[in-house]
């Protein structure tokens, strides 16, 4: 319940506390400011928990009788058995991170640390109404994504269908 309720909080609601925290940790304009808030995601925990429930209790008990402790149970039994689910969830996380815009846009201030989604608006300005450059930049940003999608189409469709959420 508590974990799932984390899904209800939109990014916009926690922007100011997040910025204050990053400021006090001196993480503004550092790529870790983008990585750290993305590390815990309730959807991932929820999905992987459903898959872990599918691992039979007998395996765990057999390993416990053989002397494994918690970490070994996770590393040697549950991790290999849920590998396909982890691939799907991983692709989903990657799409989320790639499409993330608002927080990277605020957290990164210098040009050389920018990420792609935050850098695209720099091609638009008040005195430049031409769309050609920003369209070119968008095309450059889109080409690798399209290639990866064509390569991994099956996994991505499976992952989106499984999690029911589109990035």
């Amino acid at each position: 319940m508590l974990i799932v309720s984390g899904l209800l909080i939109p990014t916009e609601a926690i922007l100011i506390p997040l910025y204050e925290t990053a400021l006090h940790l001196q993480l503004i304009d550092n790529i870790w400011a983008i990585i750290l808030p993305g590390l815990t995601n309730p959807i991932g925990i929820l999905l992987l928990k459903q898959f872990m429930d599918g691992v039979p209790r007998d395996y765990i008990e057999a390993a416990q009788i053989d002397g494994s402790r918690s970490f070994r149970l996770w590393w040697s039994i549950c991790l290999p058995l849920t590998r396909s689910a982890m691939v799907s969830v991983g692709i989903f996380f990657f799409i989320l991170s790639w499409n993330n815009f608002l927080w990277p846009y605020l957290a990164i201030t210098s040009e050389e640390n920018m990420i792609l989604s935050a850098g695209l608006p720099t091609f638009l300005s008040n005195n430049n109404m031409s769309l050609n450059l920003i369209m070119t930049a968008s095309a450059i940003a889109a080409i690798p994504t399209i290639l990866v999608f064509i390569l991994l189409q099956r996994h991505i469709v499976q992952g989106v269908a499984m999690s029911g959420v589109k990035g």
Partner: protein
Amino acid sequence: MKKLALNIAAVLLALLFVFPLIWMFLTSLKPDGVNVYTLADWVNWSDLNTDNYVKVIRDSQILHWTWNSLVIGVLTTVISILLSSLAAFSFSKLPFRTRGYSMC
């Protein structure tokens, strides 16, 4: 007959989704200042060139930004998958007292 109609509907829907992408690529290939708004711009392919690509790659740090995005995406994905998996394992298999409250 019914299958044909379904196929046509699917193709039309797909075109609807691909249309902005085509517009993006077409505009990016036009010379500076020519925005593809009219039908004449859509069918006139004589002025297509790749100058914009050269200009964007040379004048901005877009390749560097792509690299940053990639690094952040991979790091976030790998670390958060491992953390989520650990949390999921404990919620699924380990007995502890507040488990029922924190995860249904």
